[in-house]
């Protein structure tokens, strides 16, 4: 049977309690807001780009443990990645939380794999992917806030 601890793993609880890369960035190159109207989760991503590469990334906002931990872990994983690499990791992450995970390249995911438990709770997938959708749109140059609905 699926155990609740598989969803709220220590690492997730920890990232929720003390989120990494949390806070507004001074003069970011890109800023984008993501909103999940169903939950009221709301986060803002800040990006500094070096050409195609993510030089620095941070976020702020409020949300459930899954969305905060996911954003914290994502920002950790994205530093130094190119937009193309980020996109690839996002695709893997999306597979991870929406399928049985058989096609996931877990080497690419690293710590992010801790969020796999979300797949048992379809209504919570949006919490885990809000930051990713926001990043995706920010990398595409989107200016207006995005919404999961």
């Amino acid at each position, binding site marked *: *049977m*699926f155990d*609740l601890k598989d*969803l*709220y793993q220590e690492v997730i*609880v920890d990232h*929720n*309690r003390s989120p990494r890369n949390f806070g507004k960035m001074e003069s970011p190159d890109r800023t984008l807001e993501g909103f999940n109207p*169903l*939950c*009221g*989760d*709301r986060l803002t991503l800040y990006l500094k780009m070096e050409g195609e590469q993510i030089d620095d990334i941070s976020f702020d906002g*409020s*949300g*459930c*443990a*899954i969305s905060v931990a996911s954003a914290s872990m994502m920002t950790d994983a994205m530093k130094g990645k190119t937009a193309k690499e980020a996109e690839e990791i996002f695709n893997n992450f999306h597979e991870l939380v929406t399928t049985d995970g058989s096609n996931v390249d877990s080497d690419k995911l690293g710590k992010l794999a801790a969020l796999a438990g979300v797949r048992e*709770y379809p209504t*919570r997938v949006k*919490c885990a992917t809000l930051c990713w959708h926001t990043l995706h749109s920010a990398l595409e140059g989107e200016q207006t806030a995005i919404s999961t609905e």
Partner: protein
Amino acid sequence: MNSTAALTTPAFNVDALRQDFPILSRAVRGKPLVYLDNAATSQKPTQVIETISRYYSEYNSNIHRGVHSLSEEATSAYEAAREKCQSFINASSDKEIIFVKGTTEAINLVANTYGRANIKAGDEIIVSWMEHHSNIVPWQMLCEQNGAVLKVIPINDAGELIMDEYRKLLSSKTKLVAVGHISNALGSINPIKEIIDLAHQHDAVVVIDGAQATPHTSIDVQSLDCDFYAFSSHKLFGPTGVGVLYGKQALLEAMPPYQGGGDMIKMVTFEKTMYNELPHKFEAGTPNIAGVIGLGAAIDYVSEIGLDAIATYEHELLEYATEAALTIDGLRLIGTARNKASILSFVMDKVHPHDLGTILDHNGIAIRTGHHCAMPVMDRFEIPATARASFAFYNTKHEIDVLIEGIENAKKVFC
């Protein structure tokens, strides 16, 4: 059962009533279901399920049109349900009972017919800060179309309407007041009699959203003197997809029809169509026949238990739950009105409502988390969401104990 419990609720045998609800004996994630999402929708007793099933297996046919026996049987069951609704809210005539899809459609019907015909640019419509979106958006849409202005009655920190502010909003410009009887997000029971009387002093028409009230309290539209009253079957232990709009006959007679089609006409030629009489004028097309008949069975069911007995028992549940909730460190109740129905909305210091909802679900407990279709209430309390446990007469103190234990467990995950 211990004797003190028996003394406080004579004749209220929850265990026996629970037997009427087949779903209450199922398990969720390996635990007995504890269903505390009754404000979203209620569960259905066997009496309702079997009534619907009997319609489909024994006399399914269209109503009002056939001369054959099945159609006569269906028509008389459908119209009998209308009479049940009439006496349930004490309307003066069954012509005042219009079957619709639910509360949402009932309010939209009034906005689109009465509203469009009678409310003009510069007129004012008053709603309250604690309305469900379905009692805000139709009025906003009407204001957008005709240039009327929406005014909002503010609420205090307890989640009660500030009646002095309401009095100040009323003027000769006020044409309509639309207020919920009981708030689904806060549980507050609003003083609708007073609201109606004050509105009538300014010749404004009053629409009451009764979606949350009919399962918990008896309604008398004549003594309230309300002009319109809306409710949904599915919150009242009946099927989804059906509800009632009550309207005073004189108002309904004068209103233009809502949708055009079959059943709502007396005679159609290409030059002119004569509309049917009430209530058929507002019931175009084949209605939700099974749903209406099922609603009739639900009304029989709750009437037999008695809404006064239900209200007394639920009040006891609410007091028990409130007291228990307040012992939880870091829990803050949202909605502490003096006059409250059995709805417990709250937030926790370190646990987001959505995480709480997931963790409770893991214990078989169904609560609702989110904005409860009342975003202005969330803004008012400066929170993104609440967790909400809402009780029906088939809930027990034991289930509340399970809820409290679940909340304590959730805290352990995060603290």
